[in-house]
C-alpha cells in the first residue's frame, strides 16, 4: 500500500496532464474541431490525407531531415573537438567552456530575436561587418532568402546547442582513465591519434545518446524558426512544429494540427526505439 501512495501523486499528475492529453491528441487527429463553429465531428483519417497531400508538409519533413543531418554533422564533431581541447580543469578551459555553454540558458525566443536583427538583410550587423571586410555593400538576405534561410536557422541552432553537447561529451570523457592516454603518448601517438584511437571508441555509448538527443531536438525545433521566419519565406523554412502551429491556429484546422503532432510523436518514438536497439547491441559488444 505504502509504495503506491508515494508514487500515486506523481503518477496522477503525469496521467492527467501528459498521458491523457497525449491520448486525446492522438484521437483529435481523427476529428474536425472548431471551437467558434462549435464543431467536433469524427472524420477518420481525413486529416492525415489532407496533410499528406499538402506541399508544405512535405517541405517540413524534408527540412526536419536536413536539420537532423546537419545538426549531427556539425554539432557532434565540433562538440567533440571542443571537449577534447578544453578537457582539463585550468581556469582557461573552465572559462571557455562556460562561454560556449552559456547560450543554453537564454530562451530560444530571445536567441531568435537577437539573430533576426543581426542577420537582417538591409541593416544587420553581420552584413555591416561583411561590407567592411569586403569593401563594398553586402546585402545578403540571410533568413529572408529562400536559398539560405534554412541553413542560417540551423547555424543558429548549432550556436545555441554545441556547448551543451560539448559538456555532455566532456562528462563522458571523465570516465576514461588517464593512464590510457599516458600510455599512448609514450608510444608516440599524437593528439589526433589519441582522439581517434582512445576517446572515440570509449565514448561510443555517450555519443550515441547524444546523437539521439540531437535528432529528437531537431524534430521538435520550434522557437527559433517561429520567431525568425515563421516557416517562411514561402514555406522555405517550414518545420513540423511550425506547420502544426500554423495549421491549428492560423488556418484553424485543429484536427490537422493534431495529425502533424501524431507524426512527430511517431518519428520521435521511432528514434528512441532505434537508439535502444543500438544501445543493446553496444552493451552486448566487447
Amino acid at each position, binding site marked *: 500500500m505504502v509504495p503506491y501512495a508515494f508514487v500515486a501523486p506523481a503518477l496522477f499528475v503525469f496521467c492527467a496532464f501528459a498521458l491523457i492529453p497525449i491520448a486525446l491528441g492522438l484521437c483529435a487527429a481523427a476529428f*474536425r474541431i*472548431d*471551437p*467558434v*463553429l*462549435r*464543431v467536433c*465531428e469524427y472524420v477518420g483519417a481525413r486529416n492525415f490525407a*489532407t496533410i499528406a497531400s499538402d506541399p*508544405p508538409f512535405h517541405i517540413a519533413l524534408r527540412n526536419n531531415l536536413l536539420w537532423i543531418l546537419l545538426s549531427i554533422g556539425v554539432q557532434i564533431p565540433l562538440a567533440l573537438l571542443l571537449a577534447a581541447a578544453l578537457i582539463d580543469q585550468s581556469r582557461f578551459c573552465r572559462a571557455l567552456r562556460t562561454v560556449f555553454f552559456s547560450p543554453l540558458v537564454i530562451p530560444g525566443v530571445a536567441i531568435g530575436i537577437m539573430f533576426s536583427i543581426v542577420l537582417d*538583410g*538591409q541593416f544587420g550587423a553581420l552584413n555591416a561587418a561583411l561590407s567592411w571586410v569586403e569593401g563594398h555593400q553586402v*546585402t545578403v*538576405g540571410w533568413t*529572408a*532568402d*529562400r536559398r539560405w534561410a534554412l541553413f542560417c536557422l540551423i547555424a543558429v541552432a548549432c550556436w545555441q546547442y554545441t556547448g551543451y553537447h560539448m559538456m555532455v561529451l566532456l562528462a563522458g570523457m571523465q570516465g576514461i582513465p588517464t593512464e590510457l592516454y599516458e600510455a599512448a603518448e609514450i608510444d608516440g601517438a599524437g593528439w589526433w591519434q589519441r582522439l581517434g584511437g582512445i576517446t572515440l571508441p570509449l565514448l561510443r555509448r555517450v555519443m550515441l545518446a547524444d546523437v539521439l538527443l540531437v535528432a529528437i531536438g531537431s524534430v521538435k525545433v520550434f522557437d527559433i524558426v517561429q520567431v525568425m521566419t515563421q516557416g*517562411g*519565406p*514561402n*514555406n522555405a523554412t517550414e518545420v513540423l512544429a511550425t506547420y502544426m502551429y*500554423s*495549421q491549428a*491556429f*492560423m*488556418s*484553424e*484546422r485543429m484536427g490537422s494540427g493534431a495529425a502533424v503532432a501524431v507524426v512527430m510523436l511517431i518519428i520521435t518514438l521511432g528514434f528512441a526505439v532505434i537508439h535502444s536497439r543500438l544501445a543493446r547491441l553496444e552493451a552486448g559488444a566487447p
Partner: protein
Amino acid sequence: MPITRYLWLACALAGCLVAATDCGRPRAPSAVVTPSTAAPGATVVRFGSVWVNEPRKSTLEKVAAEFRARHPEIDLRVEYTQPDDYKPAIRTAVAAGNAPDVFFVWPGEWLRKFARGHQVLDLTGELAKDGWGDQFIPNAMPLFEYRGGTWGVPMLMQCAYFLYNNEMFVKRGLAPPKTWDELLRVCEVFKREGMAPIGLSNVNKWPLHHYVSILWQRIVGEDRVLDDYDTETEGSFSDPGYVEGLRMVRLLADKGYFSENANGTSREMFRQLFATERVPMIMTGTWDLGVLQNSDEVPEGFGDKWDMFALPEVPGGKGNQAYMMGAPDGYAVWADTKSKDAALTWLRFLTSTEVAQRLVSGLQELVCVKGAVNEQTAGDKLRRYAADLEAAPGVTPWADIMLESSVREAYLDALSGMLDGTVSPEDVLATLRDAHAKARAETRTES
C-alpha cells in the same frame, strides 16, 4: 536553508501567483481594464478593442469617459488587445464562454464564422429602430450582411489607393495613370532611369494580393469574384480572368517594377522608401494616410509632396471600373451577452454622429457614419477619400478577408512565391482552387 523554508517560500509564491492570476484571469482576452466610476449594481458592459496605439487609445478613452458620465447605470469596461494577438484571444474567449459583450470584428469570412456558430447577435431588428442603420455609409454595410442578417456595425473603413510623389511626376511630365497600361508606361519611364517605380513590402504576405484582388474585380467582375471566394457557393475560380490578373501582376515583378527584395521588406521600410523619395509610387491603404503626412517617419512637409490616384482601370473588363477596393472594420455583439440592452446603448453611442465626428477629428481616419468627415473634422486628403467613397458605385473587398483561413494561408504563401519567381501564376491559381475545394467540401458537412 532547510528544506522546510523552501517549501514555505514556494507556498507563499503560489499564493502570490493565484493572486496575480486573478488580475489576468480570462474575464478578459486582454486586461488593461479601465477603472469603473459606475454606481454600484450597475450593468457591466465589456468592450473588446484593438485600439492600443495612439492617437486611437486616448481618443477612445475620452469617448468612454463621456459615456460613463452620461450613463452611470452602466459600468463600461474597455479591454485592449494587440491586433496581432486579437484573433486567437477572441476565439479562445468565445470558446470558453466569456467573450466581451461588444467586441471588435473584421468582417467577411471571419465574422461569418462567428455568425454560423451563433456566437454573435443579428442586429437587423435593432438597426431598423430609430434609424440607427441609416446613419452608416451604405458602401460599408454589405460585408456585415450574411444569410439575411446583419451581424455587426462598421466603424473605420480602409480603402486602397496609389500614392505618388507629385514632384517626381511633374518633373518628368507624367500625369497619374488612369488605366493599367498607362501605369505600365509610367513605370517604364522610371525604370529606365534606374529607379524602382513601385515600392512594395510583402513580408506580411497580404500586400501583394491587393494588386491581384483589384485586377480580379476589374477583369472578372465584382459579383462573380465574391461568389468564387465564398466556400458555400459553387463558384470555383474558373474564369480565365483569374489567371490573367495573376499574370499581369507577375509582369510587374518580371519587369522589375517592384522595389527590391519585397518579400523581405518591412512596412516601415516600405514607407521609408516612399518618404525618402527613393520610389515614386506605392499602393497602400488609407491607414497610412496620416503617417505619411505628418509623423516621425516622414520629413517635414512631406505631406505636400504626394497625392493619390484611384486604382487603375482595365478597359474591357467585366467589372465596374469605378469600384474602389477596401474593407471596413467594426463591432459585433456577443450572442450570449447578459447585458444586451446596455451593450446596445454603448454601441449606439459610439456610432452616433457627434461621437463619430469626434473620432474623426482625433484619429484622422474615416469613420463609417454619415457626416462624420467634414471640413471641421478632417484634413483634405481624408475629405477627398470620403468624397470618393460616397461617390463610388461600390467597394470590392480584398480577397484575404473573404477567404476561409486555410484557403487564405495557402493562397498568400503561393503568391509570395510568385513574387520571387518560384511559383507560376497558373500554379498560384491551382493552389487556390485546391485549397478552396477542400474547404468547400468541409463546409458541406456543416449546418
